[in-house]
């Protein structure tokens, strides 16, 4: 049985940063990912990373913008820590090789981003996530002697001992089909988001809520799950993202009459208001018949107002996306976009060291909820979140490992998981296919749990999710092989998504107010008196999800009305 002091699940930015931080303190580290690390979804992050590094900026201003962006649901101690440490983290990335773009003085250039009171987003063209992820992977290759890499290993369960501590994981080697138990003194979940619960989504096919459901099953609470970010600019055709960097560079949003409609919802910040605000404004244009495109289901994003040379240098990737996926040359004509599912603010509840309530289990990145994003994440704050809390979790997990003996793990869970997989493979080919269920889940969530929500729709989504959970018990797959059996992994992932979707819908039903990304047409106002609190979902004694509440940490910014 492989043993490691610190075992990290997920090799996106959060996981890789955690691994490098843990390795720094001299413990034995392993990082495991179901895809090769550079294929992790962090690679798709385009626009940039926020840090108050300009001499005219201050981390408190960044923190305030983040608190306001969160619609006051973010925990201010965590936000302060993140914003204070941001400049140091960005400089660290610069020193290990990230090719941040410069201004004419040779310093890091900063671009404008939504919800920010000053230009504070460092970037590498519009491949910032890729540029950082690949550099961290360079560092993992450099530290190959201290960080073991398990690439293309799929974690199926977290191990919890009788005392309730996390002691390792069970995983399947995708290439050989072999199952293995891994023991670890500390486990860090960094397995990313849950975008595939929605269709369409900007998220990759691998963002299937694995870590969220695994943590839930292990007894950890999920927090802020109702807060689902719809990004204002996703391609009408297929949901792919057009980075906020485009609006940061000056692009306009127009309705069918050519009107810059953001002047109504955010007269000062216009296109650069918070994402929830912009997405709602767009949805109103669409709903009220001022949309464009085949069924009037989109609005225009006009990038032609940005100088062409600048677009080719700084937004090259979306030039490609426009060309390859919508047949539009964005430097010459507007492109049709709409709000689309993009990010989950909620996740496994942690403290500011990344510790979950389960001893030995940490979480960082999109899978976690510290909560720095609260009701709405600001653009370019997520990369920052993954790195700051990835590092913090890595350091704390290493610290814990130094004073903890290596746990003895049984292979009971391994046998369980092997049986579960054998059972899926043995199902007769009747009933529905896994892919059909996944499709139905995605379209349901996108219909009822999107920009605007109300009680009846959410109830109906809940009904569908429960039915799909039943049907998933008998849904069948084709592949019975062991080598790269992606079919069986898809079935396991569907299970994760259904459990996570249930937590999302339950939380959305519960929050009877409108805050951040949660807009209830039946409760259109923010209600601080009753709802300035986090919703937590955890499994009860009988294994069904139960709701509880936890307070929001407020240090210096009292809730105010939010205008842009």
């Amino acid at each position: 049985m492989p043993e490691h002091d610190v075992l990290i699940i997920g090799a996106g930015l959060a996981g890789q940063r955690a691994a490098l931080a843990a390795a720094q303190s001299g413990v034995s580290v392993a990082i495991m990912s179901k895809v090769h690390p550079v294929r992790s979804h962090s690679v798709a992050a385009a626009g940039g990373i926020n840090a108050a590094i300009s001499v005219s900026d201050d981390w408190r201003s960044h923190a305030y913008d983040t608190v306001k962006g969160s619609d006051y649901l973010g925990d201010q101690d965590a936000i302060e820590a993140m914003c204070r440490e941001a400049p140091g983290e960005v400089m660290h990335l610069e020193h290990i090789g990230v090719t941040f773009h410069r201004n004419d003085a040779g310093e890091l250039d900063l671009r404008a981003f939504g919800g920010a009171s000053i230009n504070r987003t460092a970037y590498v063209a519009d491949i910032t996530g890729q540029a950082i992820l690949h550099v961290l992977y360079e560092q993992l290759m450099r530290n190959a002697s201290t960080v073991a890499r398990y690439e293309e290993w799929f974690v199926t369960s977290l191990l919890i001992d009788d005392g309730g501590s996390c002691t390792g994981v069970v995983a399947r080697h995708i290439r050989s089909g072999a199952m293995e138990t891994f023991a670890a003194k500390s486990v860090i979940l960094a397995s990313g988001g849950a975008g595939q619960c929605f269709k369409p989504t900007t998220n990759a096919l691998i963002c299937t809520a694995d870590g969220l459901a695994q943590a839930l099953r292990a007894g950890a609470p999920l927090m802020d799950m109702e807060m689902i970010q719809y990004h204002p600019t996703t391609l009408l055709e297929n949901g792919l993202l057009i980075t906020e960097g485009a609006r940061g560079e000056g692009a306009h949003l127009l309705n069918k009459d050519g009107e810059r409609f953001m002047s109504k919802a955010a007269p000062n910040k216009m296109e650069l208001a918070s994402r929830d605000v912009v997405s709602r404004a767009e949805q109103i244009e669409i709903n009220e018949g001022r949309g464009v495109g085949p069924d009037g289901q989109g609005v225009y994003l006009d990038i032609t107002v940005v100088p062409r040379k600048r677009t080719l240098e700084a937004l090259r990737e979306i030039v490609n996306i426009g060309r390859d996926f919508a047949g539009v040359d964005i430097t010459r004509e507007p492109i049709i976009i709409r709000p689309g599912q993009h990010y989950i603010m909620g996740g496994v509840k942690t403290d500011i060291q990344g510790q979950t309530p389960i001893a030995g289990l940490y979480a960082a990145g999109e899978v976690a909820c510290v909560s720095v994003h609260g009701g709405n994440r600001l653009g370019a704050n997520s990369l920052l979140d993954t790195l700051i809390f990835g590092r913090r979790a890595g350091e704390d997990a290493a610290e814990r490992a130094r004073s903890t003996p290596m746990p003895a793990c049984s292979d009971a869970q391994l046998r369980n998981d092997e049986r579960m997989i054998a059972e899926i493979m043995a199902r007769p080919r009747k009933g529905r296919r896994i892919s059909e269920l996944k499709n139905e889940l995605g379209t349901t969530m996108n219909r009822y749990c999107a920009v605007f929500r109300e009680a009846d729709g959410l109830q109906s989504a809940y009904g569908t999710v429960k039915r799909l959970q039943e049907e998933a018990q008998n849904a069948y797959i084709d592949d019975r092989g062991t080598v790269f059996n992606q079919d069986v992994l898809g079935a396991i992932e569907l299970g994760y998504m259904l459990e996570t979707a249930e937590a999302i819908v339950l939380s959305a039903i519960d929050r009877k107010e409108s805050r951040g990304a949660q807009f209830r047409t039946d409760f259109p106002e923010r209600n601080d008196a009753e709802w300035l609190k986090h919703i937590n979902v955890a499994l009860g004694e009988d294994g069904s999800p139960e709701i509880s509440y936890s307070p929001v940490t407020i240090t210096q910014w009292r809730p105010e009305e939010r205008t842009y």
Partner: protein
Amino acid sequence: MAEFKLRLRRYDPESGEPPYWDKHTVELDPHRSVLDGILEAKDSQDGTIGIRCSCRQGICGSCGVRINGKPGLACNTHLDEALARGDGQEIVVEPMGNMPVIKDLIVDMDAVHWRKIQSVTPWLLPREPVPEREYLVAREAMVDVTQSMACIQCGACVSDCLAMEVDPLFTGPAALAKAYRFVGDPRDSEHYERLRYVAEDPHGMYTCTHCFKCVDACPKDVNPMGQIMRLRRIAGTDFEIEDRNNGFRHEHAFVKNIHRNGLLHEADLLPDSYGGKFDPRALPELLSSIPIVIKGVLRGKITPTKALLHPHKASKDVRAIFERIEGEPARYELNLYVTGTDDPPLQGAGDADSGAATEGAKR
């Protein structure tokens, strides 16, 4: 919606059977991607089809395959475009070349691609002292290395690299582009060592035969061959690294040859590569090429007059090109991120934003 016939190369390592062809018909919009087509078949017809994929938007580098003979990403190749590339009947999808197949369209990238990447010390060796804030570097320098940084490690260039087919130990296009990413980075302290390594390696940068396959294959416009040429120029011109493989002198011989003759005069090329006809280093090479020379004479390709005299002289135009380039204060390098694309400006938009090569990355 239209109907598309997919012909997939399948291989099941557990069956004991050799690879075979498998056909599926899917109905999709013509500008949906080949990946969408394959996933449609996988989702609704046959879940055993193996293909790596994740982002669906050409950024994660998972879905490198060969489509109607050309390597690239399944997710950013449109169905109609793929069809037009073949016989117009079927879309043929095969695993990438130059790498062992694990299952169906999934190849072993660790065994080839990643091993080569590791060989070029793929991490920054930062210049000392490390500043407290950022390194101050020229704006263009960072934009310039972004082109090689944009590599998503998909392996499409490796798949069809001709030099690698002949010499499997060749470092290859992606890894050499990665090498340039550090050589072009002013924050790196080991430019000379890096260059010497790829120059001296008998399977290093001089093994590339300029076949352009990697340039064609690359979905991210990394232009690996261009990065290799830049490595060579920097190694040769800026660092004067005369490598054991004689790559440096061979390149210079080419330039000299054209400068003098306007055309390639092959009889001079070889001796010039070794320092001229009378250089002692040229002797063994000249001797070893005697059989080729004899064959050439017999077939009438070489005549003694042509070989010894120079019947052709470079025209004024050719010399003017040389003068113009050599007269530039700095060397210009073409780089998409810096210069944009070279398509013509729109009427009325012909200002500084035209994207033409008005500006280059200077060294």
